[in-house]
């Protein structure tokens, strides 16, 4: 038997774009538009043709991105809103944990609120009285139950709300992202309570972003995407499909961000193209992040190459020998260590040698922005020398999102001596195993003279993401394994 039956449900929300926010009666009467104002002129489908069933006694997790219609679906099942078309059938008493403590009156005591809230949720007064002690104990509120609710902390408020809702003893429990209510202990208690519900054959519909909870806890999962069902069934399978989709859209987003960065660069190139290339353009403007010995000490905003100012300004994102790509290790020590959080993204340099493109490739050989931890990755730099040149160093720096240098190297440090570069070419850094923990990382790439004079410096312009099934902390994820002596017993779950 199905406890929840949702058949071909569409929910259209009204949007009142023309009216500023609310109509006024005065204007409605003056314009004679009373009836018209009650009609929406724009609609927004939150759910479109959604159908799903949850059999009695099953636990179903609803997942999906923000704005996918999860909460709307839950509200429809709860009966708070009505579907525009389609039918929703629920068998048995419902308790909806959508907003905890909704309907608590701040002025009266917790005790009275428990009673009223219980009655609101469908209990009789006697039923509440019978469960009262249990509710208070569950909420851990014994000492405060007679104080007015307005004196409660938000945690106490939520705990009490949760305790009442869960003790309504519903046949169908609807939960909307409310587990982040209390401390660890309380969360465990809530999960235990859910477990108890499951054992007693109650039906649970759970809306959450905590995928691990769905995987561990639910018999089935429902994946909503832009108001439509994208997947339903076995939680592992649905979550897997969902994660792949999320990854794809993240990939798209990073690609878009990079495209924007390229556009920006193209624009700057356009500006540059107007003037003569190289040192002669030095004084052309503060916005021009060009090599500018003359402007060296002139301004902190000028991200120019400035040997004289090398150690002078921390905010100068020029080639001040920084902790990132160590162009000249001997000088780096005497230089001020640049604060990465203040580092400015951008590109500068004289462009005698140019980095024309940066591509990251994963194991598949395809350009990508998301990699698995431990994946084989290569960083491809397209380079172009406008004149044959024999003094050049290629460097690469990796930064975590919070600005910590994860790794920096260049060809000079690794004892490659430059002989000649001519025309177009490609420089590839192969990383056999990208041993970083889960997170977002940024990339610096540069080509410069041995003494640090920058030809083309790309600062934090490239972003990639590392995914890992395990969520360790730190930056570096060494290849590792655990072993235990026979007296220490652990089981891999």
């Amino acid at each position: 038997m199905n406890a929840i039956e949702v058949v071909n449900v569409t929910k259209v929300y009204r949007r009142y774009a023309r009216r500023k926010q609310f109509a006024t009666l005065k204007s409605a009467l003056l314009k004679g538009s009373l009836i018209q104002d009650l009609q929406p002129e724009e609609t927004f489908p939150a759910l479109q043709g959604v159908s799903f069933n949850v059999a009695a006694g099953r636990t179903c997790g609803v997942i999906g991105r923000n704005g996918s219609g999860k909460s709307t679906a839950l509200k429809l099942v709860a009966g708070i809103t009505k579907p525009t078309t389609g039918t929703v059938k629920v068998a048995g008493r419902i308790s909806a944990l959508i907003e905890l403590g909704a309907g608590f009156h701040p002025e009266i005591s917790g005790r009275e609120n428990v009673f009223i809230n219980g009655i609101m949720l469908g209990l009789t007064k006697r039923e509440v009285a019978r469960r009262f002690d249990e509710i208070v104990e569950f909420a851990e509120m014994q000492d405060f139950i007679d104080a007015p609710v307005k004196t409660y902390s938000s945690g106490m408020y939520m705990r009490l709300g949760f305790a009442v809702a869960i003790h309504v003893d519903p046949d169908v429990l609807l939960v909307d992202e409310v587990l982040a209510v209390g401390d660890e202990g309380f969360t465990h208690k809530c999960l235990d309570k859910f477990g108890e519900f499951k054992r007693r054959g109650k039906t649970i519909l759970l809306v959450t972003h905590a995928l691990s909870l769905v995987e561990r806890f639910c018999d089935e999962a429902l994946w909503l995407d832009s108001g439509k069902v994208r997947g339903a069934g076995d939680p592992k399978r649905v979550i897997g499909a969902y994660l792949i989709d999320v990854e794809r859209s993240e990939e798209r987003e990073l690609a878009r961000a990079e495209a924007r960065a390229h556009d920006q660069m193209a624009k700057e190139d356009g500006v540059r193209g107007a003037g003569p290339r190289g040192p002669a353009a030095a004084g052309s403007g503060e916005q021009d992040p060009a090599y500018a010995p003359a402007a060296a000490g002139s301004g902190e905003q000028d991200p120019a190459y400035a040997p004289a100012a090398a150690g002078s300004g921390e905010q100068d994102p020029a080639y001040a020998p920084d902790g990132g790509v160590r162009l000249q290790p001997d000088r780096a020590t005497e230089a001020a260590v640049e604060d990465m959080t203040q580092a400015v993204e951008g590109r500068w340099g004289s462009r005698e040698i140019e980095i024309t493109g940066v591509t990251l490739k994963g194991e598949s050989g395809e350009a990508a922005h998301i990699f698995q931890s431990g994946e084989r990755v290569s960083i491809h730099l397209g380079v172009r020398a406008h004149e044959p040149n024999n003094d050049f160093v290629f460097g690469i720096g990796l930064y975590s999102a919070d600005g910590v240098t994860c790794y920096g190297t260049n060809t000079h440090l690794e004892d490659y001596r430059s002989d000649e570069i001519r025309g177009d070419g490609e420089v590839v850094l192969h990383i056999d195993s990208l041993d970083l923990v889960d997170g977002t990382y940024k990339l610096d790439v540069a080509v410069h003279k041995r003494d640090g004079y920058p030809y083309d410096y790309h600062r934090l312009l490239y972003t990639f993401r590392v995914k890992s099934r395990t969520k360790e902390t730190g930056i570096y994820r060494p290849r590792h394994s655990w072993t235990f002596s026979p007296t220490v017993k652990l089981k891999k779950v």
Partner: protein
Amino acid sequence: MLENLRHLSRYRGLIQSLVARELKARYRGSVLGFFWSFFNPLLLLTVYTFVFAYVMPPAQLSEIPNFALFLFCGLLPWTWFQASLVESSNILISGGNLIKKVMFPAEILPIVTVLANLVHFLLGLPILVAFLIYFDAPLQVSELVWFPVVVLVQLLLSVSLALILSALTVHFRDIKDILANVMTLWFFATPIIYYWKFAPPRIRPFLNLNPFTHLAISYQQILYFPGGFEHWKWLLALGAGSFLLFLFAYFLFDRLRDTFAEEV
């Protein structure tokens, strides 16, 4: 609609506890607590008696001896009526949390507001009784049996208007601002501070169109004026009218119900 109306009876317990909560919460933290239910109408009465019996006494004051008692007969029910409408016009918005987050029959909120104010009205009755005894009012049992009927008609009328106002205010937020002024006008358009018989004949028909006129006259005839309760035909007509209004109000409320969760 009829089904929803039928369900309404299931929520008796909820309505009961919400009314109790409303009353408890209102005077929580005030020194006099529940006594405000007595003092409020008394203070109001003092003000009006002072103004209309001493500062600017109407010409017909001799026709209505014990002016304070006359005033009180109309003022007490009016306070109930006015507070019900003003409070319920905003009730769906202030109770938005309930409508949006809990499966909750929204019509309970205006109904609870009217009922909570009914309780205040009933709590004010002992003062009225004290007045009646003090002024040695000409009470008759045959008249007094009509008293609950008047209260019932007023209840029906108040609930109907409260339903309409609360539902419309969700969509037209300025109703509650307009309403404050409308209620002042309505008060003076009702024979509460003046004797209806002395109203100029020209405006009598308009006075008769005002439903609260008939309630006020009923209260006054039952409690204040000697002689029988002659206004019963009007009262029953008003009762029938209020019932039709209630059906309309509930229909309107029911039609707009689904928009509440999205609009408040």
